[in-house]
């Protein structure tokens, strides 16, 4: 199993090892969720005792907000954690079929714009299908979020020798980021509602399966190609 290079790097200013930072984030997230749970339980109680329908409805909205906050924290914890794949043998075609169904379910508007090119034989993957699915969903989610050109995304899947190659091509008129250490530099480009942990999580998941993750921008064609290579056990 490959090691995520970013996990051995240091946080610049304080020189805190990444592993300590992960522990800190997970503990903080855990503590905050505990408090949120307490607040949530209290508001559940208030909802029970409230007699006014409007008040009840408002409390329900409040509870929904707290649930979402709790979900963000949980996702944060999951994103920084080292993935522990529960590997099983899984048909590559079935895996792609699952991901397409999932995309249609989660992104019903965006998914039809994806052009698929699937060339798979009877290849089998040794993967944790939930984790790898999570990684691919993250890539698609990012692409849908940043897809401003109105052009289609192209997803190709094929088996090349002993690897399954999944490539997602996003048309981008401009792209000024380096793709050299793609997904290895978490927390570099934090924005509102965006913690730059997603790609790091994708890389960690892929590498925990013995795969490779990289990206390359071609200024000529104006396409950012992100590729995941996963070992296959039979083709």
């Amino acid at each position, binding site marked *: 199993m490959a090691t995520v290079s970013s996990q051995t790097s240091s946080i610049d200013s304080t020189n805190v090892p990444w592993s300590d930072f992960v522990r800190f984030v997970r503990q903080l997230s855990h503590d905050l969720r505990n408090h*949120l749970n307490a607040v949530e339980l209290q508001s559940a109680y208030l909802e029970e005792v409230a007699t006014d329908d409007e008040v009840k409805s408002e409390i*329900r909205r409040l509870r*929904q907000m707290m*649930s979402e906050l709790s979900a963000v924290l*949980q996702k944060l914890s*999951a994103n920084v954690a080292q993935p522990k794949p529960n590997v*099983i043998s899984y048909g590559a075609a079935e895996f792609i079929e699952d991901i397409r169904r*999932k995309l249609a379910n989660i992104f019903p508007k965006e998914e039809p714009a994806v052009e698929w090119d699937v060339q798979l034989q009877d290849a089998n993957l040794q993967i944790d299908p*939930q984790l790898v699915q999570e990684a691919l969903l993250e890539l698609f989610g990012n692409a849908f979020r940043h897809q401003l050109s109105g052009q289609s995304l192209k997803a190709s899947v094929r088996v090349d020798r002993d690897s399954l190659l999944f490539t997602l091509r996003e048309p981008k008129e401009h792209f000024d980021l380096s793709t050299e250490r793609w997904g290895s530099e978490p927390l570099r480009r934090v924005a509102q509602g965006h913690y730059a942990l997603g790609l790091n999580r994708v890389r960690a998941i892929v590498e925990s399966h013995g795969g490779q993750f990289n990206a390359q921008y071609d200024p000529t064609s104006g396409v950012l190609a992100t590729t995941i290579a996963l070992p296959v056990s039979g083709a």
Partner: protein
Amino acid sequence: MTEHRRILIIDDERPILLTLEALLGRYGYQVETAATAAAGLKLLKTKVPALVLLDLQLPDAEGLQMLDQIKSEFPDTPVVILTAHDSLNNAIESIKRGAYHFISKPYAPEELLSLVEKALEKQSLLRETAELRQKTEQLEKRLEIAETRSMPIFTSKVMQQIEELITAMAPSEANVLITGESGVGKEVIANTIHQRSRRASKPMVKLNCAAFPQTMIEGELFGYVKGAFTGAAHDFPGMIGEASGSTLFLDEISDMPADLQTRFLRVLQEREYRQLGSTRTLKADFRLIAATNRPIAQALAENRLRSDLYYRLNTFQIEVPPLRERKQDIPPLVASFVKQFAQQLGKPEPAIAPDAFQKLLDYSWPGNVRELQNAVEYAVVLARQNLIGVKELPTEVQLPSALQRTEHTMALRSGVQSLDDMEKSTILQALAQCHGNKKKAAELLGIQRPTLYNKLKRYAIEL
């Protein structure tokens, strides 16, 4: 693979189903999967698993509704809710509706495994508790039967008076003599006295003086030390010693040898005794309840019961009347015995047909309550379609009352009788022997059938 490790996963996402199946399979669980609520319910109905992992979002049903259905049809099966949404609202709602726990995706395998293990452990404990509860209920029923058996059942006034007397004197240390025909319930009365006494914490010790050869009663009663006589291979404390701090019930005391009665009388007076073969004097600390089925006057007249022992025993005397003299007690006794035997046989309590019940009321019950108990047991065993009819009663009970022989009537026949009485008695005896068949009775008596009819008319024998 035991049934107790069977897990059903209901989730529409194939990666989750397969991953969980593989993960749980690796830890020795037998996993079945269903991608829809309908398929899940079908599997549940085929073979109930020990645990269900249920996704809250299914293509053909709302997870919470599915949970309701599972808890309604399979209330003992724990359900762990799986959901992609970390909504405490859902968690609370699931728990309210009976889910064992709630786990949100993505879950750590360790977390899920731990939860599954805990759920199955709880399930196992619940199953064990249910089994123990069932056993306890069975034992309680048996205890209730035993207690019912040992408590007098009556509605008659005479038995109510006896009950009042027992209530009044049971807490005292006074000796009690219980008399009454065989089977009237003398031991039941003795048990009741003991249970209401201050000595009730220890079991009553019973010795039936008629059940032992006369030579052995002494050793049984007083006990002996090793080597006291041939065959005394070890020390034996005797019933007096066993009854220390409790009650000694001597049944059929008039069958106790006369010399032993003298020795026992001394124990009652001095409250001390010695075991056979021992020189050590021991304290006798028992309350005495004695019983006899012989009429006291007769036992005293025949010297079967020493008068000085009788006076010592007779602090309180309870004369239990025969059942034929308190027929009001028959219905509650019958009801109690029917319940008791139906439970013992694992049958529903049969009803008693009115004509059969009348037979039970009409019969003279020479064997008293014990005979009634045996008759009801016989009837409950034979009862068909949950009904006791006349045919299910013992033959003796089925006979017309005129043909029934009782110890009571036999007793009246002792002494010189008139020729008419003897003839009537012989006719009745023949009819009883032939179960009321007049043709056979006439043959047995060596007379013509019309002659028998004439005699029946003459002696006002109605069948």
